[in-house]
């Protein structure tokens, strides 16, 4: 037990997100069976795969909402496999959830400023200013005083993106951000995400929106049965998938 644990080392790469040999099981179910992924600074990586393939779990591990059983997870220079240091990541990454998870008792502005006030501890005036700035950034400057229940799904998700943006995250994670939306509202959310990508935000996105993956991702990762089965540029993965499972999956999602 005297062997030097891997957690004492410095990050293995300069990548913003680096996972190696990540395993995770829930009871008898082995969800991740050894995953290696790297996300460079400013890169947009899209994780695709059937439900149950482990992509959401992987994303949740990247922001320490789940803990890997084995393997190393480095995010923004913080070793998440080190229990003591993992909490350092909070407040420095952004997470956008499928169900938005807005705080229903606070206005849009109240949602966006909460962490600025409580975590960054900046003044109310500065927080409001920053809050309005990021709300404007997602096209909701006029909805600052609306409560989540008064907003459409697409607007709520954009508030959620603004809430994450307000903290100047080093990386943003998106867990099926459009899956709970009516089809006609998907575009406004992917539009915001696209513009973030254009501005150089480092992003890891789990999505079933293949169009978004194809035209925005720098790198597409296809997961199947808890492993990365295939990865590459969108042209490569969508254009000439090597694995039969990838072909089947793409065939299914693109033809419906």
């Amino acid at each position, binding site marked *: 037990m005297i062997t030097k644990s891997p957690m004492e080392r410095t990050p293995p790469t300069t990548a913003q997100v680096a996972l190696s040999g990540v395993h995770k099981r829930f009871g008898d179910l082995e969800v991740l069976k050894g995953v290696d992924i790297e996300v460079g600074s400013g890169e947009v990586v899209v994780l695709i795969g059937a439900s149950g393939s482990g992509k959401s779990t992987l994303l949740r591990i990247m*922001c320490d*909402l789940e803990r890997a059983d084995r393997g190393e997870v480095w995010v923004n220079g913080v070793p998440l496999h080190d229990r003591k240091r993992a909490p350092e990541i*909070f*407040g*420095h*990454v*952004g*997470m956008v*959830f499928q*169900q938005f*998870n*807005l*705080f*229903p*008792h606070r206005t849009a502005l109240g949602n966006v400023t*909460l*962490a600025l006030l*409580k*975590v960054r501890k900046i003044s109310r005036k500065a927080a409001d200013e920053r809050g309005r700035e990021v709300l404007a950034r997602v096209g909701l400057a006029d909805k600052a005083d609306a409560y989540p229940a008064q907003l459409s799904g697409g607007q709520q998700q954009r508030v*959620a993106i603004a*809430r*994450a943006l307000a*903290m100047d995250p080093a990386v943003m994670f998106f867990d099926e951000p459009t899956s709970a939306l009516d089809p006609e509202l998907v575009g406004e959310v992917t539009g915001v995400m696209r513009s973030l990508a254009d501005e150089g935000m480092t992003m890891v996105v789990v999505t079933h929106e293949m169009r978004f993956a194809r035209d925005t991702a720098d790198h597409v990762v296809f997961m199947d049965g808890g492993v990365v089965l295939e990865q590459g540029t969108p042209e490569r993965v969508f254009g000439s998938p090597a694995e039969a499972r990838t072909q089947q999956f793409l065939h299914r999602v693109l033809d419906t």
Partner: protein
Amino acid sequence: MDWSVLWSNRDLYASGLWSTVELSAAAIAACTLLGLVIAAIRTSRIPVLAQFARCYLEIFRGTPLLVQMLFIYFGAAYLGIGNISVFGAALLALTLFQGAYVAEIFRSGIEAVPRGQWEAARVLGLSRVQTFGTVILPQTRAIVLPPLVGQYLSLVKDTSIAVVIGYAELLREGQAIVDRDGHPGMAYLAIAVLYFVICSPLSVVVRRMERKAVTA
């Protein structure tokens, strides 16, 4: 009916009423605080503490308040643990007893808030305590208020149990009046009315808060 017996004892009724109000108010504040802390511990699942909280709940919900109060007042003297005042013993017993129920009310409210709320706050960098206070607790208001009022009302009525350790609250003053002047029907009816007088504004205030919570 002889109303004069009520009027001639008005001072006793007034002082009994005041004692009951005092004990009720103190116990409501204390059991709410205790209930919040216990509920926070129970939902946090901190190993030893959570089990301790559970034990507390089982014990104080599983034994009569009357016995608890007698034990705390006379038991404390018997065990030589300081000399607790009658008010102190009554307050402590009521707080511990009602706190157990209040804790469960808060717990059901806290557990009704989706897990995603905790997760969103966590990624944003809020501590557990900050999340509890600014994100979770405000959302429990609509769920928690109605049963909480019910609990407060039962607490007010439970203060009458303090009569057994000699606390000079409403019921005890009433008994004193009956012992001296007779007319038990009249005297006890007056006491019932006075309890009702304490309880009714409580329901009104909370009903108003409830309405506010729903619209917010």
